[in-house]
């Protein structure tokens, strides 16, 4: 064979191998009379009209092959399947979504086991008219205890599978003995021209992007108990509310929750980006204030605050009182002209229901308040009873919105967020295996949430092999454009 012929053959093989596999539907099969146990579970979910392909697979230990047939509303059909995986090319998938907006895709799945085909009950994928924000940021980190190694803040394009690094903890780490931790990425109004994240330990500080310009600031002042944490950008002004916390963690010797994270002290502070000044919002030394968030109009600051402990527990250390620490949700009006806060208003009295409410987020239309809720404490992602709750902000005193479709049974959910159009709720959850957090989305309309679905991956098995948690997921409507190198330059 001549060299040009060899090249031609190799190119042809490469082309063929890159072609999508459209297998035939099995000629005969037995009916399983149940929905397929696909991973991720995309049966009867509602998805945005611009989401990346919902690739899935049947359990490799139980099946040898999988074929899925997608039927569009106009009756056209296409089949996919390669081994036990169904991976749909992005272009074909987006064409299907475009044709199915406001309607649904019908999916039939066949699985081959021990040489025989089983046909499962068909399911539907409802395609919502409303798109999801195009980008998502998360920190990728192992489900760590006290130690960590490599960590990165990554951004993912939700309409495709593209994932790029925003920053990592190695490039600007000069002191390997100290190490470096990066966390708390935050954006103003879902945009990236004004954003920040924290760098702790080696070359520590808060990296702030102000109208596209990067700088590092130290938020610790001699009148604050710590630097800032849990940031919340004001929606219109160059102001960021933070909690200033003395956070600790401890480990259960036998309880399945394994870890407790708690604050020994925490206050709220306001950082003025323009003047580099830090002012105290509240610093009640007897109570803990944390997780600030702004209303979409910027006129209120919502936050969590503990209720006083019973008299007999007040002098005890946190190890003996942590189960009694419960947070309520409050808000204070904010005057943008004077940067002053009004009187505190109780928004949700969680403690009176023997609950603790954390991480509030107001919907973009200002009508709903999402938060995480558990029996005690401020770190529900470590509590198997941690769930997401939602209350209408129409004067009701209870989280009356039914989020059964979003929450899981017996696994922690936390860190709820709204998409910029208010139709998609995102949260992190340990429901996959109880240990690693992943990102889930749920369609929200007219006060109702649809069944949650997992962040799609190109290879549905990749979440199994990626031993990382998706930490602090945040929506963005545009990508972070500043390079890692530019970020690192302000740190060194």
């Amino acid at each position: 064979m001549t060299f040009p012929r060899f090249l031609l053959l190799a190119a042809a093989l490469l082309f063929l191998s890159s072609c999508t596999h459209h297998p035939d539907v099995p000629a005969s099969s037995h009916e399983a009379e149940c929905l397929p146990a696909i991973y991720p579970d995309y049966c009867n979910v509602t998805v945005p009209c611009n989401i990346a392909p919902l690739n899935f697979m049947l359990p490799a230990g139980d099946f040898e092959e999988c074929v899925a047939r997608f039927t569009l509303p106009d009756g056209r059909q296409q089949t996919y399947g390669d081994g036990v995986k169904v991976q749909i090319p992005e272009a074909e998938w987006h064409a299907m979504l475009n044709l199915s907006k406001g309607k649904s895709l019908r999916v039939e799945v066949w699985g081959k086991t021990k040489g025989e085909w089983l046909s499962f009950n068909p399911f539907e994928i409802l395609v919502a008219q409303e798109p999801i924000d195009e980008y998502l940021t998360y920190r990728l980190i192992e489900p760590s205890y006290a130690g960590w190694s490599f960590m990165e803040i990554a951004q993912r394009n939700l309409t495709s599978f593209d994932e790029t690094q925003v920053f990592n903890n190695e490039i600007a780490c000069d002191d390997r003995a100290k190490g470096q931790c990066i966390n708390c990425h935050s954006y103003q109004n879902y945009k990236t021209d004004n954003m920040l994240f924290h760098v702790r330990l080696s070359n520590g500080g808060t990296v702030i992007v102000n109208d596209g310009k990067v700088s590092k600031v130290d938020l610790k002042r001699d009148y604050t108990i710590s630097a800032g944490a849990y940031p919340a950008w004001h929606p219109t002004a160059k102001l960021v509310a933070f909690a200033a916390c003395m956070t600790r963690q401890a480990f259960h010797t036998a309880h399945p929750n394994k870890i407790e994270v708690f604050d020994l002290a925490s206050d709220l502070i306001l950082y003025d980006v323009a003047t580099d000044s830090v002012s105290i919002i509240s610093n009640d030394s007897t109570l803990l204030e944390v997780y600030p968030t702004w209303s979409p109009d910027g006129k209120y600051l919502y936050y969590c605050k503990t209720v006083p402990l019973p008299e007999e527990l007040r002098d005890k250390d946190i190890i003996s009182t942590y189960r009694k620490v419960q947070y309520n949700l409050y808000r204070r009006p904010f005057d943008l002209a004077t940067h002053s806060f009004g009187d505190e208003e109780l928004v949700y009295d969680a403690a009176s229901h023997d609950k603790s409410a954390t991480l509030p987020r107001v919907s973009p239309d200002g009508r709903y308040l999402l938060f995480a809720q558990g029996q005690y404490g401020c770190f529900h992602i470590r509590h198997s009873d941690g769930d997401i709750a939602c209350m209408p902000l129409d004067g009701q005193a209870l989280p009356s919105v039914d989020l059964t479709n979003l929450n899981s049974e017996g696994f922690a959910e936390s860190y709820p967020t709204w998409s910029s159009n208010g139709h998609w709720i995102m949260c992190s959850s340990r429901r996959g295996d109880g240990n690693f957090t992943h990102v889930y989305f749920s369609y929200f309309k007219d006060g109702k949430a649809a069944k949650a679905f997992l962040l799609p991956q190109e290879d549905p098995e990749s979440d199994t092999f990626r031993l990382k948690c998706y930490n602090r997921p945040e929506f963005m409507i545009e990508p972070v454009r500043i390079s890692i190198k530019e970020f690192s330059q302000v740190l060194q």
Partner: protein
Amino acid sequence: MEVNPRNKAAAVILNVSLLAFIAFVIYILYINQEVLYTAHDRSEFFIGASYFHTLVSKPFGLMQYAGAWITQLFYYPALGALVLMGLWTLIFLAGTKAFQLQGEASALMLLPVACLLASVVEVGYRIYISPFAGYWFSQSLGYLVMLLCLWAARCTPRRWHLVWYLLAFCAYPVLGWFAMLFVLCLALLGKPTWRELLGIILLIFAAHIWRVLLYSGLNAEDVMLAGWPRFATAHDSGTHLSIPFQVLAAVSVLIPLCSRYLSRWFVPMICAAAGIIFTMSLMFQDRNYIDEMRMVRYAADDDWERVLHVAADTPKPTVTMVMLRNIAMMNEGGLLERSFKLGNNGGEVNTPDSLHVRLLNIASPLVYYNYGMMNEAIRLAYENAIRTGFSPFYLKMLSRCAHASGDVKLEERYNTLLHHHLFYGDWQPAPVSETVQELQHSFPDELTGTENSDSYIVNSISLWYESDSKVASEQALFYAMMRRDSRRFWQSLRKYVRLHPDGKFPLHAQEAYIMFMDKSPEEKRLMLPVEQAVYERYKQFWETLERQARSNQQLDKIGETMREDWGGTYWWYNIFGRKIY
């Protein structure tokens, strides 16, 4: 044609030297087979795009990925060793071609092989604490590819060398520091011209250019030293482990310069001897190091008989060995009858530098698992795996912990990861033993800090005296004795006696009982009958001790003097044992 007797003798010397060196390599790999098994057990490797991209996103990552894949073969140490020797044979052959070494001078290639061999057997206790992504093979692979490139370059006309320099520059993401070594070797092969000068300039700027082009998200040091093994931990530099690579680079540069002067009959002998001496001088040699690895392997397989067998042959065990042996006795019986006879004086591991490796790094998840302390086992498996990689050892431990905790989905996930390993295709966690199940429910939940010290486990278990588990009561009694804690001893003895109403009063418990009756200040004691012979021996022990003390010797000296007669008693441990617990 008649062969010159002198040439014949030189050929014989060459062949004998090569054979001697080969025999030496086989011997060294044979005595280090437990190290090779541990190398696979503590090396991370995952099939799949995610792990591949993680490695390949850094220069030299492809070599590391290939090396990590081949490291799986050390599951059967002989198989992995065979591949390693095959690579070194190819290096020898490719080197003789690349450097155009003929006759006796070809023995010079034994030196790079010796460097690579030394790099494998010098690692020592760092095997437990450094992230060795593909280390065991990637350097040999990189060097082999470098030599093959050099061979190919030398087969092309000199005017084409510029192309090779450019190729070396392009190959930097794959070959890392070996691309630089290639340029240096090629440039030194002949009289320098402007092409060689260009090669050197490329060499100087290659890493920097690649950082700008492709690796702007990486730490500068990681790009500049791509592929160069670094052993620094947060608290230790480990620079001496780089010696084989420094020598490898130096030898590779010197061979093209000196080879023409080294075609002498004695060169093979010198090269073989130098290789042997070099390897032996760098090889980590410590009997406990190997025996500890065997014990960890047997303990991970729940093969307690073999753990005890190794322990019986170990006069001065490390803390890890003592812990594993006591777990073996918990499972096989005889803990309170034989443990102090075998010695509970666990020592620190023997490391040549400031490296601090201990039970935590070597086998802590395994120890905690066997004491039913799943949360600690999981935490420590994670703490270690995050730093050193999710290797089979940690995945197996995490799977076993998930199995014991009833976390089915998590167990499936770890098993899936293991099933993609070449030799763990059918691996399933062993059933949870009754002992582990009993211990799992024998202590209350409480909050603790990051308790990573060796003493934490001893302290925790000595507090189990409130449990109604028979196994837990025996452990609480034993660890109260280990702590020399008379208060906890009386509490745990009471519980032990109540839960073992018909049992024999074990020898070591009798020894501790007599001693604490005699010396400790507690008032609420327990009256139990002891064997007269044991009591008599206690009196003799104390008389001997008082006699020795009158001789004004230091306590350590007295302990050593009394070890032979009394080293197997609890009394000796109580007075002279190291206070590490």
